[in-house]
């Protein structure tokens, strides 16, 4: 294991301490339980947005705490969901009287911990709604699996729902907008390398030099197909086509196109992928209304990328364009 760390067990805590120092204008951090909260929380009369999940996906979720996006994030251990006491503390910290929305990625651990926390928060009189993101087309959606994983759409849903909350819209409306983004969004990812959880000390899986994994999740869990490495053009088609067929996206649709790095892939390669994606869209007459390129939902040092598309309308575009001021996303201010 070759990492810039002191002790594996201290990585999450040291990173939180650094966030408090580096972004004191945006957020404040409490420990035991660990929560990252917007500096001016609770904002009176505004719906509070809480998300969370395992650490190792930075900047998600802590990097999205701030004006126009999340009110709090609950970081678990690396690739491990946060605990109910943690989620409850975050929920209480951001409740400004208008209720709290939990944005939860569809993983069994996240769902169970957020459900337990929502039960506890309701017992204390806080109105809580939960939206589950489940956009990964690599996973079969059937009653025989835990359902599709929540991946790239989570970032976009947090931005768009965050803008709706910032406009002081009521809880139900903010939750419905969040669900609308998830319902109109699809993703697929791939890995060129594995990743190493600091406390595990060795790669989660072995991936030979000349092979890649298609359909990877964001926790280093293996994907569905392993094959020989090929060109960016062919890889992009392998990611984009299943996404387009699944929703389906049709000729004339406007999309928010998100090319995301898994943590170990340089931006220049993400742009190569974006270029291939744009060519495929041109052929199918799909219009890119807005785009996001960069590493926003990562898997430690894994090399690879994911593509997320959301079918947009004017309202979603205007919420996407609304000001946001977080460590990870910042515009319009």
């Amino acid at each position, binding site marked *: 294991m070759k990492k810039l760390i002191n002790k594996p067990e201290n990585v999450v805590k040291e990173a939180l301490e650094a966030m408090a120092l580096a972004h004191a204008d945006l957020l404040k951090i409490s420990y035991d339980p660990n929560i990252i909260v917007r500096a001016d929380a609770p904002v009176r009369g505004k719906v509070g947005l809480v998300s969370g999940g395992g650490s190792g996906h930075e900047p998600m979720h802590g990097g999205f705490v701030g004006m126009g996006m999340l009110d709090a994030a609950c970081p678990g*251990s690396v690739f491990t969901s946060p605990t109910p*006491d943690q989620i409850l503390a975050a929920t209480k910290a951001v409740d400004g009287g208008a209720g709290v929305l939990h944005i939860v990625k569809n993983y069994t*651990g996240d769902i169970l911990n957020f459900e337990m926390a929502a039960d506890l928060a309701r017992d204390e009189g806080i109105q809580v709604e939960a939206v589950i993101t489940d956009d990964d087309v690599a996973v079969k959606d059937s009653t025989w*699996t*835990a359902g599709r994983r929540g991946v790239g759409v989570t970032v976009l849903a947090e931005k768009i729902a965050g803008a709706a909350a910032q406009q002081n819209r009521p809880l139900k409306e903010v939750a419905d907008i969040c669900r609308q983004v998830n319902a109109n969004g699809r993703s697929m990812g791939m890995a060129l390398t594995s990743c190493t959880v600091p406390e595990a000390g060795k790669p989660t899986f072995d991936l030979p030099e000349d092979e890649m994994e298609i359909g990877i999740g964001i926790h280093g869990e293996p994907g*569905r197909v392993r094959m020989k490495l090929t060109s960016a053009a062919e890889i992009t088609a392998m990611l984009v086509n299943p996404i387009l067929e699944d929703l389906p996206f049709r000729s004339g649709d406007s999309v928010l196109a998100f090319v995301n790095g898994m943590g170990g892939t340089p931006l220049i390669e993400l742009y190569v992928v974006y270029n291939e994606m744009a060519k495929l869209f041109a052929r199918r007459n799909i219009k890119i209304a807005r785009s996001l390129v960069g590493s926003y939902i990562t898997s430690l040092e894994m090399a690879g990328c994911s593509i997320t598309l959301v079918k947009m309308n004017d309202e979603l575009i205007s919420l996407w364009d609304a000001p946001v001021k977080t460590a990870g996303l910042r515009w319009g201010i």
Partner: protein
Amino acid sequence: MAVQANDVIAWIRTFAESIRENKDYLTQLDSAIGDGDHGTNMDRGFQAVLLKLPDLADKEICAILKAVGMTLVSTVGGASGPLYGTFFLQLGAATAGKPELSLADWSAGLQSAVDGVIMRGKAGPVDKTMLDTLLPALEALKAACAAGSGLGEALRLSAEAGERGMLATIPLVARKGRASYLGERSAGHQDPGATSSELLLKAAAAAWNQA
């Protein structure tokens, strides 16, 4: 022939030690079909439990079990935190007011604990989860109870049935949790949750063989 509060503490301690010894093994099983954190998470939770045990020495059985459950809920994370937390919280609720546990009390307690796990995780038999160990172990325990077995014998039979259930997860295709995303590729691997549950049953059989 009954389990006292200090026997419950001995069981928790034995289980915690067993989790520590098998930490890497559980993580290795989880790396094959999950996200490779089961051993680390369970060990973190039970090390936190061990720190609490001295304060629980003079407490009632139900209070000890509830404290273990709450500690696990707040320290384990993943799916295992709510599931094992619920297991111990329900076991605690089922043993409320009992100064000691007979074989019938343990059987009823395990039934409540398993019902709690089913309610929280919404899983059933052959989904390739911890229930594949716990359900046959519970059935064996009830059968031993009905046949008039002693406590030591019943716990041994229960742990053995759990072990067969655990081994039977190897060919199964996972239908719950992260392993379900692998589809057919999850077959051929023993389930890590079923394995930690088997350690729990073995710890009870080892700690209570003199009870």
